[in-house]
């Protein structure tokens, strides 16, 4: 797995390099659509040293990840319990799912203005946007998780004397764990894709903001730095989750 990934990346970077070779000389007139790797690395080091758009790189990254993690954490704390509950109680599920299924396919920018009007342009509006994006995948995964619990596991636990709460703790929750993990991973992915949208309006910092700022001044190499940082962090975060899942849900695929 790791090995194959390395090959893919080597090929991609080599192709990128070959494709952009003719731009090796600096001073190409104006902006380029795809800057060469050298320019991007140079730009990265420059931003690392001097910052960009009146913030250091660490401040940009910190702002973005702060928003992302706050939103994901709130989503974990709300969507998972609500999803599990809705898996149990059909009536509540009908109410919540109807709303979630309406909001889920909406482009975040469509309702972003409303959030900003309601909460003003501070950090809260951005966190709320990311939270809404992360909520649906986690919620849906948890509802499904409860519905998919093997019936005979529940019957077994009942014949062993388990009451409602004990069934939940001993059977439903561990059964649901693999799906919950999938939900969290999907949610993080969706939240990431919303990051740039969230920092599009009235942001002062953040990787998404940095990208948009660079776009406005035609510095595509900075756009690339931002994209690569977001991409790498997303892959690393997903790896971390996969690793945790493997440890925690050790029986997945085994039984």
């Amino acid at each position: 797995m790791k090995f194959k990934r390395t090959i893919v990346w080597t090929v991609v970077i080599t192709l990128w390099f070959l494709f952009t070779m003719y731009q090796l000389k600096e001073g190409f007139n104006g902006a380029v659509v795809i800057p060469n790797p050298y320019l991007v690395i140079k730009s990265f080091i420059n931003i690392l040293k001097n910052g960009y758009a009146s913030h250091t790189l660490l401040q940009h990254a910190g702002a973005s990840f702060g928003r992302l993690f706050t939103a994901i954490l709130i989503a974990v704390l709300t969507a998972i319990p609500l999803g599990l509950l809705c898996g149990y109680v059909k009536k509540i599920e009908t109410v919540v799912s109807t709303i979630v299924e309406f909001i889920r396919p909406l482009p975040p920018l469509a309702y972003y203005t409303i959030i900003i009007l309601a909460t003003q342009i501070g950090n809260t509006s951005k966190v709320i946007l990311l939270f809404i994006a992360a909520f649906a995948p986690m919620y849906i995964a948890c509802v499904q998780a409860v519905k998919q619990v093997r019936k005979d596991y529940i019957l077994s636990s009942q014949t062993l004397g388990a009451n409602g709460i004990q069934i939940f703790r001993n059977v439903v929750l561990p059964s649901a764990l693999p799906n919950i993990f999938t939900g969290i991973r999907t949610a993080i992915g969706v939240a990431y894709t919303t990051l740039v949208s969230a920092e599009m309006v009235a942001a002062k910092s953040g990787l998404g903001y940095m990208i948009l700022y660079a776009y406005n001044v035609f510095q595509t190499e900075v756009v690339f730095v931002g994209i690569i940082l977001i991409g790498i962090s997303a892959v690393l975060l997903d790896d971390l989750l996969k690793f945790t899942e493997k440890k925690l849900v050790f029986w997945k695929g085994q039984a």
Partner: protein
Amino acid sequence: MKKIIEINNISVDYDLEDDQEPAINNVSLDINENEFVCILGPSGCGKSTLLKAIAGFVKPFKGNVLMNGVEIIGPDKLRGVVFQEPNLFPWYNVFQNVAIGPKLGKTSKIEINRIVDKYLAQVELLEFKNAKVFELSGGQKQRVAIARTLANNPEVILMDEPFGALDSFTRQKMQTMIRELWNKNNATIFFVTHDIDEALSLATKIYVMRSGEKSIVMDYDLNYTFRLLKNPKERVYEEKEFILLKDEIISLLEE
């Protein structure tokens, strides 16, 4: 002999709306203390449905099932169930699976340890105490499932073709083991099978169920199991009486 279960003329239909005939029709029988009752019949005769009705997994639309004089309305710990598929919880190891009943019953830690050790020893799996359940073979899993049920000390153990998925060699060993467990623990067992030899060699009482009637058509009192308890090597299978009885049941089921 104390009557534990009393089945009064029950009929079970999974879907009352459809035109199909009920899964079981007008079944009546009693299960007495320390009996080893076998329900013998071909696939589709309703024998598993009968077990589910006793367990409380399905409700008869006619008649009732009483346990110690009280109507059974749902699954509880008085009736332990061993399923055909050993549905152990993969997120728990062998010890935790066997301990689950006593743990739910708020038994002390020392007592739980004693109970688990006792029954794991009885099914000869003490050395697998800390194994993960997906590391076990099919026969071992079923033995853990049996230990899990015994550890909860139910008044009657319901077994739904528990050895059906095992190879014939393992099945024979398991039959000897369950006979000894039944005797050692003064258990009462209700055992569903389609295997005539299995029923004849284990049961103190056989009820024969037929697909046509979806009901019990004949019953036999037997003592082979006591003889096999004294001498598991005794070749009762070759006795004329055994063979004649077997032929009688076969012709009964062929009708």
